[in-house]
């Protein structure tokens, strides 16, 4: 199969977008990625296809057909264009489809842009919007939300494996510390572990959101966009920088209704997606140098670090306690700040994870750089784990 790489990356500052429309936000990330790849948007630009990843532009921004709009805004006509929706895993899905488009031989160069502008609606509407991905009759109508399922999952994990609220705060503080070194992260303030976990008044600044999950165990609501330019490796010399290779992609689904899962502490779609990505890349968990795991809730970073094979089941929180997932540790996780501190604009997240890995593998990650990182794994988690995409990138030796 034809090899595919990433030639350019772009990323808006996550947080609150104040510079115009949803398509303006996508355009900003897209132009940065095109410039990074050295693509001029004039006749003969060579971009064959544009994929936009967004879960809810039609619902919350009242705009549909955003990929068609973006192609025109960027003057990339007559490139092919589609909008991809796969919940919070839309971003990695769009990258996967870009990979397939090039690997098939149908395209040579694909621009993938993920974005979500969520802060145009109230918190109540935003929570409702995200919950629309749940099962309509068995979940959504009850008022169940993603934080509700994360809370119930966390309780099971605590009772089965001894994870504590403090462990979740340790993961949170670690991700906030990483985000300080990421200029595009939403939050650049580091909470102190003492203040959010140990102080007798910790519950005041760190109240419950969905018991036993507290505010500092849950990602913020963010606007933002991220973009990557995918290229055929056999045309790598067209671009300004040496492309980083997509070594493996795996995806798997699980039951829509969370209650139907046989073992409620398993994230089978994560396990299977990662296994497929490792198989395709010919790599093992211990070969990975840096990872971006979908920590919409801090328990997910712990559980995913086990499901992708970094740690034994039930040992992820111990590893976090011991600092093994910090930069400089055994396997640094969420060097970007993760969803917790970098932010989680749904459609952008999967693309944003790839942007971070490319920066790490190129050695462009500044104060959060993992020394000599050659391979990276990203896990983008859709629904409450009912559609998961894992992607492995590898820097080719000179």
């Amino acid at each position, binding site marked *: 199969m034809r090899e595919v790489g990433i030639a350019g990356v772009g990323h808006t500052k996550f947080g609150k977008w104040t510079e115009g429309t949803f398509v303006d936000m996508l355009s900003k990330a897209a132009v940065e990625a095109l410039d990074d790849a050295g693509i001029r948007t004039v006749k003969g630009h060579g971009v064959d296809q544009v994929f936009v990843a967004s879960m809810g532009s039609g619902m919350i921004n009242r705009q549909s057909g955003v990929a068609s709009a973006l192609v025109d805004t960027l003057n990339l006509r007559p490139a092919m264009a589609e909008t991809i929706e796969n919940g919070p895993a839309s971003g990695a899905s769009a990258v996967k489809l870009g990979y397939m488009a090039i690997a098939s031989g149908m395209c040579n160069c694909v621009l993938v842009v993920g974005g979500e502008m969520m802060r145009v609606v109230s918190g109540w509407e935003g*929570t409702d919007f995200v919950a629309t991905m749940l099962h309509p009759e068995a*979940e959504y109508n009850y008022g169940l939300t993603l934080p509700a399922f994360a809370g119930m999952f966390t309780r099971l994990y605590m009772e089965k494996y001894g994870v504590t609220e403090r462990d979740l705060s340790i993961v949170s503080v670690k991700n906030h510390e990483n985000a300080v070194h990421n200029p595009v992260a939403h939050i650049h303030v580091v909470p102190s572990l003492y203040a959010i976990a140990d102080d007798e008044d910790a519950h005041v600044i760190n109240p419950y959101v969905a018991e036993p999950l507290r505010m500092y165990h849950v990602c913020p609501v963010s606007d933002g966009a991220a973009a990557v330019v995918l290229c055929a490796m056999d045309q790598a010399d067209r671009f300004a920088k040496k492309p980083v290779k997509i070594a493996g992609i795996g995806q798997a689904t699980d039951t829509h209704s969370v209650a139907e899962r046989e073992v409620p502490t398993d994230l089978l779609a994560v396990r299977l997606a990662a296994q497929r990505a490792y198989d395709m890349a010919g790599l093992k968990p211990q070969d990975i140098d840096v990872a971006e795991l979908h920590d919409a809730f801090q328990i997910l970073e712990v559980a995913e670090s086990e499901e992708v094979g970094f740690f034994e089941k039930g040992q992820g929180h111990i590893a976090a306690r011991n600092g093994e997932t910090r930069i400089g540790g055994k396997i640094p996780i969420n060097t970007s700040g993760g969803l917790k501190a970098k932010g989680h604009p749904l459609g952008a997240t999967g693309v944003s994870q790839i942007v971070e890995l490319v920066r790490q593998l190129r050695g462009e990650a500044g104060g959060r750089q993992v020394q000599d990182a050659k391979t990276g794994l990203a896990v983008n988690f859709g629904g409450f784990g009912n559609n998961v995409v894992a992607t492995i990138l590898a820097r080719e030796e000179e």
Partner: protein
Amino acid sequence: MQLKMYAYKCTCCGELHHPKHYACRKCGARSFEEIDLEGEATVVTYTKVYNLPEGYMKPYLSFGIVKFDNGLTVSGQIEAENLKTGMKVKTSVGVIKEGVGKDYYGFIFRPVDE
């Protein structure tokens, strides 16, 4: 108005499902019969949520995943304080959301000793 909740039993192999599926997870058959889903159940896990979505006027609600004696696990609202995993609850069907011109019905679980 719906005051009953159902399990969907495969007419071929008897496998129970909730919610509804169009192919049996065990044998792949396509036809199901509705069986009343009621009685006592055991709390598998639960949460109390303080940031409810648009459409709820309450400051918080409790939710749980419970297991029926027939092995089916479902999600629902729970009206109880001092919840514990493993505790027994009884099943009722009530209004889980007030819509515009339409109420939505579903499982509301309560402690057996109430």
